[in-house]
């Protein structure tokens, strides 16, 4: 793969510096965002092979269009997600994945899933166990060997973090 010389003193994360034309840059972009894009594609297409294909196509498109990426307009994750969205829509038009649904609802659910993954473990456990699974806070507190106050504290900071993370993922709560 062609290697470009490192551009001197360029603003961070420009198309070239983000290195989408270089193997190392692509590897870094994949390590940072590949799994999240895969889960998005899988959520839309309901088929692992089709989701893998969509992610591969995303990075090929990104490599091809690296010069057009402007970090001042959007973050790399959102830029890659926009490509994946188009790839998924194309796949839907080709009839890949009978349950395909790249709708806003799916995207919001995906974003919430990704945001939950990024919470510290204790905060995530507090939200998942008490709210999503409906277990009493006292039971969760005993299990985690903390006070009920600590579980509530985790809930508060978890919701604040989710609010920020969702915006980072392009979803306005």
């Amino acid at each position, binding site marked *: 793969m062609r290697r470009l010389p490192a551009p001197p003193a360029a603003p961070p994360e420009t198309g070239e510096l983000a290195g989408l034309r270089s193997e190392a840059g692509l590897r870094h972009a994949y390590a940072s965002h590949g799994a999240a894009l895969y889960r998005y594609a899988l959520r839309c297409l309901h088929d692992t092979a089709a989701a893998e294909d969509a992610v591969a196509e995303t990075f090929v498109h990104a490599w091809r269009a690296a010069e057009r990426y402007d970090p001042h307009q959007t973050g790399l994750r959102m830029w890659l997600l926009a490509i994946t969205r188009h790839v998924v829509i194309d796949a839907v038009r080709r009839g890949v994945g009978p349950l395909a649904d790249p709708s806003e609802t799916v995207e919001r659910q995906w974003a*919430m899933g990704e945001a939950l993954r990024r919470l510290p473990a204790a905060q995530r456990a507090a939200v998942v166990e008490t709210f999503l699974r409906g277990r009493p806070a006292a039971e969760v507190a005993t299990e985690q060997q903390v006070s009920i106050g600590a579980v509530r504290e985790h809930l508060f900071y978890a919701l604040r973090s989710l609010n920020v993370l969702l915006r980072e993922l392009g979803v306005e709560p």
Partner: protein
Amino acid sequence: MSSTDAHRVLRERLGAYVLGQLDPDSEARISHHVAGCDACQAEVTALAPVVPLLAAVHPDELDETLQPPDTLPGVIRRRIAAEQRRAQWVWLLRALAAAAVVVLAFSLGYAVRSPAAAPPPAPQPTPSASPTPSPKAPKASPTPARPSGEPLTVQINDPAVTAKVRVIGHRWGAELRLEGAGFQSGAVYLVRVYVQNGSWITAGSFVGAGSGKVRCVLTTGVRRSAAVSFTVLGPGEVTVLSGQM
């Protein structure tokens, strides 16, 4: 407890409050506090819209181990390498075309500028001047056909499917050419090539077209000499056809 600490404790219950997890007494106490506290009101306003989004999540869908397969970066690398090869060919063809235009323009310019220097017209050959028939211009040799590859013996497990598979060895790896019909319309078929140590690599995928013909070129990063066999997996990862390489 100082009033600052008391406020902090109340504020840190706002998460449980907007999630509706407090008992009625605590909820009433927090509601009363929020009504008179601008900072906590702002917190509630910011946190509340997260709740309906969160409520739509199914906890069992939060599979933290859900990751793409380890082979995916290799697939991306191979596709980009193929793009690069194509781009190099396009560049070469454009350069040749540009060179041809330059040569043509130069020749025309020369001819226009120097009419006197143009050589006199060559005498037309007469039948007597050329008693022997002029040799026929050699026919343009047809463009050499791309290597058609080596046909592989295919074992077909699906009676609806007919298929022929050929393999071509390149320096960069083996290329499979699959031609067939009867692949379930709209279904995705995955092609794997197995190598000598028993591992496999994905050569690509295609979508079935029912009774319509499917012709596809599948490339691998495995040399022809290292490839042992291939399989085509249909819906449910069922082997539809396979063969030794």
